[in-house]
């Protein structure tokens, strides 16, 4: 009797069934791994993106120009204007230029299709409050897809001098004085003379994670005034 070579149909079907099951389990595990990887990748990407954006803004704020600028009508004050959704100031470390080149910076929060974005732009080199600010038209998107975003400012303590009576202060002057440092929603250095101690940017990202960026500008300036001496 001749010995048959190969497999019977049953053997083949059983082998294929076992093989398919093994591959299915393997693929399922692999797919789940991929999904987990994708999720982790997205989360780490969001974290990294947020962390790098924070790093850039932190450098810009830590090198903010807190010295006085000359406003029209001969008024001297530092340049920092902040509202709940907008900040304007001048920095020697702008994101789009090399460190040491002084440029105006504007940051704003805008809502679009029920999602918030954090936008950034700079004024051109050699433009400032004295010579006129020339803002670039294009905005860079720092963060997108946010649920909510707000800006606030830690105003420094500025006790009312004993010789002044609060009743006789103008509305603008009343904004200047406070017994202790306080977080407020609007800040204009023209009224308050000094820079805010800290700036907070609070937002909730697309994953529902609340974050707070605390940014600290210099505490005062070395270049607050200048006199020329003729030494010829």
């Amino acid at each position, binding site marked *: 009797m001749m010995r048959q070579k190969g497999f019977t149909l049953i053997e083949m079907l059983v082998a294929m069934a076992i093989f398919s099951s093994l591959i299915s389990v393997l693929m399922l595990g692999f797919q789940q791994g991929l999904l987990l990887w994708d999720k982790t990748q997205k989360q780490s990407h969001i974290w990294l993106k947020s962390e790098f954006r924070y790093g850039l803004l932190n450098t810009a704020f830590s090198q903010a*120009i807190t010295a006085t600028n000359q406003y029209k009508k001969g008024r001297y004050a530092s340049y920092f204007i902040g509202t709940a959704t907008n900040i304007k100031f001048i920095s020697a470390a702008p994101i789009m230029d*090399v*460190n040491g080149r002084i440029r105006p910076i504007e940051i704003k929060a805008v809502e679009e299709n029920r999602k918030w974005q954090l936008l950034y732009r700079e004024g051109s*080199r*050699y433009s400032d409050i004295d010579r006129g600010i020339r803002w670039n038209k294009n905005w860079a998107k720092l963060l997108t897809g946010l649920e909510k975003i707000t800006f606030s400012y830690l105003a420094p303590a500025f006790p009312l001098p004993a010789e002044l009576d609060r009743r006789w202060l103008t509305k603008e002057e009343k904004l200047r004085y406070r017994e202790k440092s306080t977080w407020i929603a609007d800040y204009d250095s023209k009224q308050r003379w000094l820079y805010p101690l800290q700036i907070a940017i609070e937002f909730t990202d697309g994953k529902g994670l609340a974050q707070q960026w605390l940014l600290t500008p210099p505490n005062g300036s*070395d270049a607050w005034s*200048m*006199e020329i001496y003729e030494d010829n």
Partner: protein
Amino acid sequence: MKITDKAGNKGFALPITLIVLSLLTVLSMGISQMARQNIAKIQSRQQFLQDELQLKNTSQWVLYQLLTGVPDKNVKRNNSYTLPVDNTAVSYNQVQVQVQDSAGLMGLYYYYPKRTEQLLKKLTDKQSAVKIAAQLKDWIDKDSRSSYQGMEAAGYRKTGQPMLPRNAPIRSLDELLELPAMTVALYNGSDHKTGIRDLMLAGGVAEFNIATAPDILLGPMLGITGKKLAQIKALKKAKDWTHIREATARMSLFSDSSPLGQAYQYRVILTLPNGKKSRALYQLTPSKEKPYQQKQWQYPDNDRG
């Protein structure tokens, strides 16, 4: 599909399994590569923050020494440590620390064009030195009369400069980079040559401290040359403070201040073993609620402009 080997065995399960395994291996390698790149980015950010933290920790130690130390010519001395404040490098926890008393630098709050020109002549060619000093004067003053070799708004327009002078006090030393005659190399200096940013402050103080000043500033700041300058330099090198007082009195150099008095403001440059640097300016305010003000913090401290 049937595959037959040399021995005559037939089958397809093994080859297909190998193919599938190969595909899975290639996919895994791709994912691992992406993961490595991501981890590298995170590690780089982590290193950046870790370095900053180490520099800030060292700053706190420096501030403690400055706040508790008693000023003594070119050092701050307390019971446990003597910190040089003349930019001499010392080491603390492997971080190189250089503290410079502001009174040993040229402050631009009191702007003396001739004095600045004399300093610049030591750093660059004569023509550029004259131009920079004159341009800075015209940059600050409110009039529209150009100084010799200087330039006012009309001159900037005429020569097609991209900027106009502010005609107001400078707000940061970096603003010097906007002067047409200024160069990035002159401003930053190099390993072999001191830069303007290492010798000047946007504001600074009225006093001048011979004990903490670099030698290059002695001539321009004291307005002396030749033998007188050589004598002061020699006395400074020998740390002969008593004779410096006598010599400066004889030369009538300091009328109402000490030639060896420190200011309350210090520039601090810190360098990590990996080369990362920070540059800060601290004003000591011991009588106030917060004992110091951080007027400048530049990290990483790279070349400007």
